[in-house]
C-alpha cells in the first residue's frame, strides 16, 4: 500500500533538533509571565512567590536526575552550560597549560569551547570512537595526563544517538583525580539520568530538548566542586551564575522535565514502535541503507545513510511532502561538508553524503512513521 502525505499536516520528525513545547508547560510560562513580573532577587513581597517558584523548580529538576537542589544552576541553555563546564574548569590554571579530554563526536558547544581554550594555551585530546560512535574507557585511561583538568564526554550523541558508557568513563577520570563532565542535552528527559549512579561531576541540559522552551537550561555541579562562575555580575544562583532568572521559563522547564520523566517508559515504547515501523517499511521496500549508531541508542533516534545520494536532497524532498527531518551533512555554498560525527564513525564515502536524521518524539504516531517510510522510498526511486 502506498501511503502519501497528501494532507497539509506537517509531520515533525526532528525532535533531536528541538521538541514541541509541552502545552501545560507553555500555559504555565505564559501565566507566570503575566502574573509574576517582579525580579526574584528583590526584597519586597511581590518577589516572594518568584523565589518560591525558583526553589520548587530547582527541587523538581534535582529530583528528576537524583541531584540535590543546590546542585542545579539555571543557565540560558545547553551551550552556556557546556561553555561554563569546560572553560571554568581550565581558566584558573591556564599558565600551567592544562589538558582537556573530550571525544571526537561531541557537539560543537563542547568542541568549540575546547578550541577556544586551545587558543589560550590548553591542549585538547579527542578520544576516538568505534564504528557505532562509542568511546572506549580504555582509550581514556591511556590518554589521561597529569595536567588533564577535565574529561568531557556526552551522554548521548546528537547525530547518531549513541549512548556513551558515562559511568565507566567517570570512574576512570576519578581514579586519576580528574573532573568529569557530561553534555546530556540530548538525553535528559528521554532516558533515565542519575547523576549519582553515573558519578558525573557536572552535567549539561537544555529545556527545549525535553519539551520545555528555548533559552533556558541548567548545569548540574556536584557539591564540593568549586568551579569559577562563567558569567559575572550579581549574586543570583548562589553567586555562581549572574543574571536575573527567567522564572517563567525555569518553571516551565521543571514541569516539562517532570512530565517527560513520569511518562518516559511509555514514550520510549511508542517511539521505538515508530522506529521499527519505519525501518521495516524501508527494508520491505528493498531500500539500501545503513542504520548508524548501533543498538545502544536513544529511543526513536535514527541516523540513516542511503547509498549514492545526497542527504540534503532527501531533506528538501521530504520537506516538500511536509515531513521535517535533518541531514548529516551541511551544504555550504556548493561544497557539501561531511559531518565530523559520521567521519569519526568511518561511514564509507558512498553512504556518508546520503545521511539523514529522523528523530521521533512523543507527538509522533506509528501512522506518521509509515508515511515517512513510504515517502522516503518514493523519493529514493526518483533520484
Amino acid at each position, binding site marked *: 500500500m502506498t501511503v502519501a502525505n497528501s494532507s497539509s499536516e506537517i509531520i515533525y520528525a526532528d525532535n533531536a533538533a528541538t521538541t514541541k513545547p509541552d502545552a501545560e508547560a507553555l500555559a504555565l510560562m505564559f501565566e507566570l509571565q503575566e502574573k509574576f513580573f517582579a525580579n526574584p532577587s528583590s526584597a519586597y513581597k511581590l518577589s516572594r512567590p518568584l523565589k518560591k517558584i525558583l526553589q520548587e523548580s530547582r527541587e523538581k529538576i534535582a529530583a528528576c536526575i537524583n541531584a540535590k537542589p543546590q546542585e542545579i544552576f539555571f543557565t540560558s541553555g545547553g551551550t552556556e552550560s557546556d561553555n561554563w563546564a569546560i572553560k571554568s574548569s581550565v581558566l584558573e590554571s591556564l599558565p600551567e597549560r592544562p589538558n582537556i579530554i573530550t571525544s571526537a563526536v561531541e557537539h560543537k558547544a563542547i568542541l568549540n569551547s575546547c578550541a577556544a581554550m586551545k587558543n589560550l594555551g590548553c591542549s585538547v585530546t579527542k578520544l576516538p570512537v568505534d564504528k557505532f560512535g562509542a568511546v572506549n574507557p580504555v582509550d581514556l585511561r591511556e590518554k589521561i595526563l597529569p595536567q588533564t583538568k577535565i574529561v568531557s564526554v556526552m551522554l548521548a550523541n546528537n547525530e547518531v544517538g549513541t549512548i556513551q558508557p558515562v559511568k565507566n568513563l567517570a570512574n576512570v577520570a576519578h581514579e586519576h583525580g580528574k573532573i568529569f563532565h557530561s553534555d546530556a542535552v540530548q538525553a535528559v528527559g528521554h532516558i533515565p539520568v542519575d547523576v549519582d549512579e553515573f558519578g558525573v561531576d557536572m552535567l549539561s541540559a537544555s529545556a527545549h530538548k525535553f519539551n520545555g522552551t528555548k533559552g533556558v537550561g541548567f548545569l548540574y555541579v556536584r557539591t564540593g566542586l568549586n568551579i569559577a562562575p562563567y558569567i559575572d555580575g550579581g549574586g543570583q544562583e548562589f553567586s555562581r551564575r549572574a543574571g536575573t532568572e527567567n522564572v517563567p521559563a525555569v518553571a516551565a522547564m521543571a514541569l516539562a522535565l517532570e512530565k517527560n520523566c513520569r511518562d518516559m517508559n511509555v514514550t520510549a515504547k511508542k517511539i521505538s514502535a515508530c522506529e521499527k515501523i519505519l525501518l521495516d517499511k524501508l527494508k520491505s521496500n528493498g531500500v539500501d541503507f545503513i542504520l548508524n549508531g548501533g543498538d545502544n541508542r536513544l529511543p526513536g533516534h535514527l541516523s540513516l545513510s542511503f547509498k549514492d545520494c545526497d542527504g540534503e536532497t532527501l531533506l528538501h524532498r521530504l520537506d*516538500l511532502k511536509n515531513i521535517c527531518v535533518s541531514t548529516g551533512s551541511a551544504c555550504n555554498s556548493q561544497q557539501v561538508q561531511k559531518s565530523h560525527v559520521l567521519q569519526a564513525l568511518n561511514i564509507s564515502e558512498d553512504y556518508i553524503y546520503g545521511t539523514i536524521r529522523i528523530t521521533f518524539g512523543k507527538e509522533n504516531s506509528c501512522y506518521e512513521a509509515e508515511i515517512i517510510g513510504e515517502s522516503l522510498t518514493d523519493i529514493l526511486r526518483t533520484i
Partner: protein
Amino acid sequence: MATKNFKCIACGKSSLSKNEIGINKKLLGMKSKNFYCLECLANLLEVEPQDILDKIEDFKRDGCKLFE
C-alpha cells in the same frame, strides 16, 4: 539569467535559468543530468510551482551559489 544548452526534458523548454538548474540539482541530486523547467519539476514532484519558488528563495537566502 539563462543558462545555455539546457532544455527541459519533459516539455522541451529551452534556456533553463540558473535557478531552474540549481533547484533541479538540489531536489533531484547533484549528479542529476536531466533537468526540468520549474512547472514540469513541480508536476514531477507533485507540488505547486510556488513551493519550488519558495525553496529557491530559501537557498538564495542561505547564500547557495547555485542560484542567482
